[in-house]
């Protein structure tokens, strides 16, 4: 991708570092705060954050309606949301890229089938597909990962297919074929290595939409189920306490927006680095 280290603007660097910080903190949450998510403490219900009137120092962001430490739940929720989005991303990126490269290299029946499936996918909104899947298969982390993976692949397929078709015309591909390179070698050594940069950029830009899909599903009650926790579920659970304890909904909302803004801006910047022509468009 030819990004030199010194060319990263401070602003982007701050975004990347703060995002990595969120990722690391949420990965390490069970190490720092080894708690049982289901455990409740009804004597400490709905405490405000410690910096507000009535807050206690022991609960920095206060407690929820069942007396559970809100900050710890926020870490666990972020952890679940990010984990599901990233795992879904891996599935959709690998599946989508593979299908895209194959259909780009070898047209024919596979190409027709895949492009039909992509059309079908585009004609039903992801959220509706997710609703069908959640009602049929129930809701669990694995199901959510699969839903995100299987609804997210078409854009990767389209991109990979287009890039591969362009590459096919390149001289070095022809030389490689003439020299007798095997099909596998062509796919792995030439195609995948040449299309990896645009795919990585696309993946970065997709993370935010996967985070949004996960949180929307959990918000609707079709994703992560209590006592487990995710950011969308926290926003939804806090809704009933908007009058008395607004932070229960607002803080996780802010965290979602913060993560999505960070990831989108990093993605936009990466894309501009890749292709300066796209800048400002």
């Amino acid at each position, binding site marked *: 991708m030819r990004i030199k280290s010194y060319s990263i603007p401070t602003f982007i660097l701050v975004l990347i570092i703060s995002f990595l910080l969120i990722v690391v903190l949420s990965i390490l949450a069970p190490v720092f705060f080894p708690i049982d998510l289901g455990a409740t403490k009804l004597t400490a219900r709905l405490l405000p954050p410690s910096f507000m009137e009535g807050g206690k120092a022991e609960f920095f962001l206060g407690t929820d309606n069942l007396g559970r430490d809100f900050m710890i739940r926020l870490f666990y929720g972020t952890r679940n949301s990010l984990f599901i989005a990233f795992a879904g991303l891996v599935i959709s990126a690998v599946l989508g890229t593979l299908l895209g490269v194959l259909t780009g290299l070898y047209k024919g029946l596979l190409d027709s089938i895949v492009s039909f499936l992509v059309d079908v996918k585009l004609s*039903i909104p992801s959220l509706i597909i997710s609703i069908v899947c*959640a009602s049929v298969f129930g809701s669990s982390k694995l199901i959510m990962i699969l839903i995100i993976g299987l609804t997210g692949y078409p854009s990767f397929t389209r991109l990979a297919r287009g890039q591969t078709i362009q590459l096919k015309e390149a001289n070095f591909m022809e030389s490689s074929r003439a020299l007798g390179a095997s099909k596998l070698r062509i796919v792995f050594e030439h195609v995948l290595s040449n299309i990896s940069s645009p795919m990585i950029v696309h993946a970065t830009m997709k993370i935010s939409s996967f985070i949004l899909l996960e949180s929307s599903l959990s918000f609707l009650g079709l994703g992560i189920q209590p006592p487990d926790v995710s950011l969308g579920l926290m926003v939804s659970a806090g809704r009933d306490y908007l009058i008395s304890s607004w932070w229960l909904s607002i803080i996780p909302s802010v965290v979602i927006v913060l993560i999505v803004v960070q990831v989108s801006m990093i993605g936009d910047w990466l894309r501009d680095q890749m292709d300066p022509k796209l800048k400002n468009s």
Partner: protein
Amino acid sequence: MSAFIVKRLAKALFTIWFVLTLVFLLTRLTGDPTTWLLPDDASATVRAELRVSLGLDRPIVEQYTDYVSALFTGDMGKSYHYLRPVGELFAERAGPTLTLAAISFALAILFGVPIGIIAAVNRNSLLDRFTMGISIAGYTIPSFVFGILMIFLFSLQLRLLPSGGMSTPLHYIMPLLTLTVDSVANIARLTRSSMLDVLRQEYLDSARAKGAGERVVIYKHALRNALIPVVTVIGLHLGTMIGGTVVVETVFAFPGIGSLLVTAAQYRDFPVIQYGVMIVATTVILVNLLVDLSYGLLDPRIRDNF
């Protein structure tokens, strides 16, 4: 042209059929619905009765043919949860959802396209930066977060608007805003980038050289070409918007089709899910068919090649 229409129509119908069959097969994968509709200790006779009343005792092929013919008769069977005809449930709730979606769709186009054009023509101006800033906010703030922030501000703090329901026009304001902001942002961003692409092209210089005024160059020569990708995305955007109504209706306790689908998913109410998916898929596919056909109106070259 007519061969093209027939081909596209055939493909659209095939896609609708495929989606319907897929949903039918999926909902039959999970086994016997009476296991979760009735308490664990229900007797075998009660289970058998329920199966008969829901039509689940018949051969699967017969169920499938009934299901497909329901496309034309509208008889989609009974909801597992409400125990009422599915068609009735949808008829009750279609009005509010359609009103919401249609107004929002119209507003999104009415505001999104002009904002995008103005931003592109006055590139890097304060207005451009402002609209693009708003549009970034539009696509990074999930609609349920936006909705909850609005309830918090306008219903609970300022006490200006009702937070849920749909009995008065006032009830439509916040759901509409929530649904529309994201779409306006999307369409404005796309129109702007499509317009910028076109504004760079040389044929505009030749139009100027021939003495066309800037207004004519932008609104006649540039806009028509810039609109083709915009129209495509507006068509695809309809799907996103239908997904959006699901969330918005849940946030604002708005009794429409979207909230019906969410409840149906929670109760595994398959007849409702099947009918809902059928309506959504058919709408999106037909709108996109219209979009494809509209290219001809925008670009005579495409029309001639049909």
